[in-house]
């Protein structure tokens, strides 16, 4: 019997690899998600990070405690007030400083306004990714009013730099109070309208429901935080646990949903919008008297030895700051753990067995790279070389 001589070995990959990012018009963070897909189903996701690491922890070690307040405020544009608040409270714990009640209320006001515009932004993006761009435009328009309210309070619509050790940087008067209340009243009406759109619109429901379902036990084991874990039915919220600033006096509810899909997470955000709006109303009608602005010249230049760990409920979830002082004017170590580190790096399991088309809904965005698909590896056994050809020309290849 004559044996057939094997000359070529053809490997056809079972999965295709689709890189999403790091640069893409609709991707909100410079992040690369490598999807491995079998047909339309995702079987594995690798997260490749490091495109935007700015070395802020190292930078914080090299600058003084007070300069770092401005550095940490620039970690994130959207939630700069919570970053600054968490860091400032970590310093206050080390110094044993307790800000006046009015400052505590105003801090919460700034952070809740931030939560309102942050949730409106992500809900707008959810709508856009589901293919509903008109809703995106409307939500973004109304979000702008909240930015205005934040400007009235802090003096800046984005980077507030509102927090100071021992208080806040400026006070509100009666005119500002009534303007903010007026804006919040109008925004609440619009939020009710958008909530109805999310509940009733067929496109939103079809795209968001069942996309990226996360069970309660998985959410906890993988340390997911914020609306993601609350959307899976876990009642955890740093505001309720730690009761920092004025959260022990301002009434609010922790919103949870049980189902754990993208729709449940959107509904948690809507619930939190109402809670935040109520809190803003409560704060502006129950604001304690006093001076919330500390005298900067009287703050201690040198810090005692010590360490502290502050947590804050940022719009995206629990944000933590560890600050260690060895005495002196610079911190020995500042550790920042942002909610997205846990929520993005640890959540790759949520994409498994989902349709490729649902990945943008779960992730935020997605862009398939065609040049990485449709490839087979051919090894020429006689010459010992490997080369690649597209699958579609495989049928015609002779050697």
């Amino acid at each position, binding site marked *: 019997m004559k044996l057939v001589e094997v000359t070529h070995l053809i490997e056809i990959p079972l999965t295709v690899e689709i890189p999403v990012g790091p640069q893409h018009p609709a991707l909100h963070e410079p992040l690369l998600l490598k999807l491995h897909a079998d047909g339309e189903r995702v079987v594995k996701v690798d997260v490749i*990070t*490091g495109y935007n*690491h700015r*070395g802020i*922890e*190292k930078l914080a070690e090299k600058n003084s405690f007070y300069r770092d307040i401005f550095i940490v405020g620039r970690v994130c544009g959207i939630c700069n007030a919570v970053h600054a608040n968490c860091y400032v409270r970590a310093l206050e*714990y*080390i110094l044993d400083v307790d800000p006046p009640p009015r400052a505590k209320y105003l801090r919460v006001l700034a952070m809740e306004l931030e939560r309102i515009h942050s949730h409106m932004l992500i809900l707008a993006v959810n709508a856009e990714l589901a293919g509903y761009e008109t809703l995106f435009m409307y939500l973004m328009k109304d979000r702008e009013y909240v930015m205005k309210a934040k400007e009235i309070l802090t003096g800046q619509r984005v980077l507030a730099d509102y927090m100071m050790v021992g208080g806040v940087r400026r006070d509100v008067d009666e005119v500002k109070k009534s303007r903010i209340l007026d804006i919040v009243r109008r925004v609440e009406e619009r939020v009710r309208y958008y909530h109805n759109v999310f509940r009733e619109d067929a496109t939103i429901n079809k795209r968001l429901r069942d996309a990226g379902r996360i069970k*309660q*036990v998985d959410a*906890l*084991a*993988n*340390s*997911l*935080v914020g609306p993601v874990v609350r959307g899976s039915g*876990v*009642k*955890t919220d740093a505001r309720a*646990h*730690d009761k920092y600033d004025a959260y022990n006096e301002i009434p609010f509810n922790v919103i949870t949903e049980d189902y754990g899909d993208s729709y449940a997470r959107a509904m948690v955000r809507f619930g939190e919008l109402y809670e935040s709006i109520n809190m803003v109303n409560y704060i502006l009608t129950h604001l304690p008297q006093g001076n919330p602005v500390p005298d900067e010249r009287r703050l201690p230049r040198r810090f005692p030895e*010590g*360490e*502290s*760990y*502050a*947590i804050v409920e940022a719009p995206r979830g*629990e944000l*933590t700051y*560890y600050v*260690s002082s060895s005495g002196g004017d610079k911190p*020995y*170590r500042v*550790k920042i*753990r942002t909610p997205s*580190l*846990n929520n993005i*790096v*640890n959540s790759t399991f949520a994409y498994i067995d989902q349709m490729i088309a649902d990945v943008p809904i779960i992730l935020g965005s997605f862009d398939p790279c065609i040049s990485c698909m449709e490839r087979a590896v051919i090894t020429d056994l006689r010459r010992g070389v490997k080369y690649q050809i597209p699958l579609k020309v495989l049928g015609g290849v002779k050697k």
Partner: protein
Amino acid sequence: MTATAQSLVDSLKEYVIKSYTMKPNRVVVEVEASKIRDIFVKLVEVLGKGSFYLATIEGTDLPEKNLIRIDYFINLFKHDTYLVLRAYMPRENPVIPSVIDLIPGALAGELETYDLLGIIFEGNTHLRRSFFVPEDVSSKGIYPLRKDSGV
């Protein structure tokens, strides 16, 4: 220290070297680096899986003592308590067993701490340089958060 925290420290007493509080009210428990897995197993046993999560892993370089310190911040959200497990390792060979098979949420923290500080989490096959650090720094074998890294 709250009653819950006290009873938790008591249940871990065979592993506890020292315990104290960190401001504002975090319960710090110093333990042996090599026992970290046993402690997480014990925590799951005592608390159950659904009542805590590992929030943060933080490493600090202490060149004067020739040590590297690692802190695991655990949020016991059902008891409004924060537990900190603290361990020290020699600076030349900072090795600690990985806990990702017990607590998958440790993944992000372990990857970050390895890349920035060089703590090796034994058993974590996902560890790689340039998770966060730019390649021109990581290719020289520099761990930026070490105090003598020159970064």
